[in-house]
């Protein structure tokens, strides 16, 4: 057994975490699950494209509802002409008209019967005259049509505008209202991406731990290094894997952006500017994942079977969904206690702060909240490790079984 002098030395918690992380990182990076992880972002696009195609087919199969008109021949012509003039100037808000019948003098029509006929996909029917139009249609739609029908009728009866003066357009990049609205979109998109990514990764780290328990390796690790180091190693390995994934996605996105050029829509600038926003995105993503991941690890360490993991993680997943919604809700309530709560609650804090970076200028608050989230990660990791030591490494029989053994042995 003598193979030279030993050169071992005591590992610090961080060094031990690095040993665990190095193993996990290389194992995951060269596994099939990483390929799926890389392809992950494609799934929403593929599903979106498929769903969009199906939706388009459904849409095409349904005819656009139209407004029927049944008046005297002259009135019908006037209404049609008025509709054309207005549609040209106002656009799609003016409904299309379809002629149901040109009425002879003295002739009447039952609008209800006409609507029920298969003649057209009618939303409502206009009868009477342009001066005294009668609109017949379902109660939920008719009020919607009322103003527009009145506009067409006014135009048809000669009471509409005779000419539409030209309006000089002075195009600017954005207005304050537009800026606020588009930044809200940036905030919402970034929150959603953050939520999906953190849930995906936390799920992966949980599976990794459960697999490790299945392989019976966890006891070897727990005997050699503190559980805090095991947890930290596993968390940071998955984080490093995700950074590789994000770098790959960023590269692929950059190539698409360069190839597509200006045909891609412009994303509105976040309040703190793109460089700071991207940096904060990485930081909040990392902290959001570490917070959720440490909680999932604590759960995973207590569970013995995949079923137990599912049972225990379901409420946490639901709770995280609530945190996500809460941060979304708080986003538009600047300066209220709701915003403060969303920033302070560890699990909603990364979502809230990322949205804040998109919407509001000012960086010092981010430093403060990042420090808070780091403290929470440390606390969760420690709590998870303590729970693991207290509850997981049980051995020997249950109390009932032990009593049974004692009885057999003592007789």
């Amino acid at each position, binding site marked *: *057994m*003598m*193979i*030279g*002098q*030993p*050169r*071992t*030395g*005591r*590992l610090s918690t961080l*060094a*031990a975490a690095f*040993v*665990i992380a190095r*193993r996990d990182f290389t*194992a995951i990076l060269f*596994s099939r699950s990483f390929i799926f992880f890389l392809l992950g972002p494609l799934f929403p696009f593929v599903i979106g494209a498929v769903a969009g195609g199906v939706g388009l087919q459904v849409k095409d199969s349904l005819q656009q509802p139209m407004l029927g008109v049944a008046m005297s021949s002259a009135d019908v012509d006037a209404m049609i002409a008025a509709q054309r003039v207005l549609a040209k100037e106002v656009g799609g808000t003016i409904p299309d008209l379809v002629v149901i019948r040109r009425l002879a003098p003295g002739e009447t029509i039952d609008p209800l019967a006409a609507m029920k006929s298969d003649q057209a996909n009618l939303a409502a029917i206009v009868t009477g005259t342009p001066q005294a139009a009668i609109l017949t249609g379902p109660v939920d739609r008719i009020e919607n049509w009322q103003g527009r029908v009145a506009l067409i009728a006014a135009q048809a009866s000669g009471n509409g505008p005779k000419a539409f003066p030209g309006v000089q357009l002075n195009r600017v990049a954005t207005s304050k209202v537009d800026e606020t609205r588009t930044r809200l979109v940036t905030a919402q998109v970034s929150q959603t991406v953050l939520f999906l990514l953190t849930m995906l990764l936390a799920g992966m780290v949980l599976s990794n731990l459960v697999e490790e328990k299945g*392989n*019976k*390796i*966890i*006891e*070897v*690790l*727990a*005997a*050699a*290094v*503190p559980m805090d180091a095991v947890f930290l190693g596993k968390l940071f390995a998955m984080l490093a894997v995700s950074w590789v994934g994000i770098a790959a996605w960023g590269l692929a996105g950059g190539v698409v952006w360069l190839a597509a050029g200006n045909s891609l829509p412009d994303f509105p600038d976040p309040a703190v500017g793109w460089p700071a926003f991207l940096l904060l995105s990485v930081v909040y993503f990392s902290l959001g994942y570490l917070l959720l991941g440490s909680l999932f690890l604590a759960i995973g360490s207590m569970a013995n079977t995949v079923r137990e993991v599912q049972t225990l993680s379901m409420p946490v997943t639901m709770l995280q969904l609530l945190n996500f919604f809460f941060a979304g809700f708080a986003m538009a309530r600047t300066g209220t206690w709701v915003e403060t709560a969303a920033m302070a609650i560890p699990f909603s804090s990364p979502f809230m702060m990322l949205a804040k970076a998109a919407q509001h200028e000012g960086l010092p608050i981010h430093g403060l909240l990042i420090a808070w989230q780091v403290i929470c990660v440390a606390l969760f990791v420690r709590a998870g490790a303590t729970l693991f*030591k*207290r509850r997981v*490494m*049980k*051995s*020997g*029989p*249950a*109390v009932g*079984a*032990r*009593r049974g*053994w*004692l*009885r057999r*042995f*003592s007789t």
Partner: protein
Amino acid sequence: MTSNAGGADSRPLAIEAHGLVKRFDGFTAVDGVNLSVPEGAIYGILGPNGAGKTTTLRMLLGIIDPDAGVRRVLGSERPHEIAHIIGYLPEERGLYPTMKAYDAIAFLGALRGLPLSEGRRRGKELLEEHGLGYAIDRQIRQLSKGMAQQVQLLGTLVHQPRLVVFDEPFSGLDALNQGKLERMIRSLAESGTTVIFSTHVIAHAERLCDEVAIIAGGKVPFAGPVDVARDRIRPQVRLETRAADGPWRKALPADARHEGNFWLFTLPESGIEPLLRALIEGEAGILSLSIERAGLHDAFVAIAGEAAAQALEQEKEEIRP
């Protein structure tokens, strides 16, 4: 801090535990365990399944913390601080299935502070040395269960620990590999390494151990040298006589029983001489007489069984309203 078990051993202690207690959900798995393991010894923890062996080892290694009591391993009360000089092979063996054999050994060494490159070099050497050279580049999942166990065993020793802890090391091994492991344990002890292992198979402990702790119902009713354990049971006398009956029969102890041609009984407290005299004077016609020292198995059954019975009585008392 020296061993005093048996009164003669003055070696410093590798492991010292006082009053270790561990409860799980109201169930006391380990109840006031005291242990003193001398450095360089081969020490066995014997007990039936569920007696508290694994929980005791886990507490000594710092995998779990005791609810009460003190443990000191190689001079430290914090086992993780000296993890780099300890090796541990758990009862439930486990390695990463996709790792290559030499990498698995290196990883186990790295967990104990051995540089990865050094671990890989030693891993290859150890595999060659133990006749597993052909498996160096094979993944763990491609190895048989027994071979994977050997790889893990080598990984437990790759960093050349001063203390090696094995939990049921012989389970799952065939007779050849059990013999190999016994030789390895002896070799470790000869090189000054302290070896402590748990087992419920007494024969291994009897062949290997200098000292044992017998654990039953979470308690340690006996801890000390194997000879002392054996001496807990009085030697058995096996007597063969020519005469089937006679006045000599009155000299036999009360527990004497007749089996085949022999009388079997416990050696009387007064010794063999008065009995011999009575047999001769009573004309028993002694054909043979042997005094057999108790084996560790008998000692174990007696000590552990008594402790189990006491624990059961105690539990009954606790349950009784």
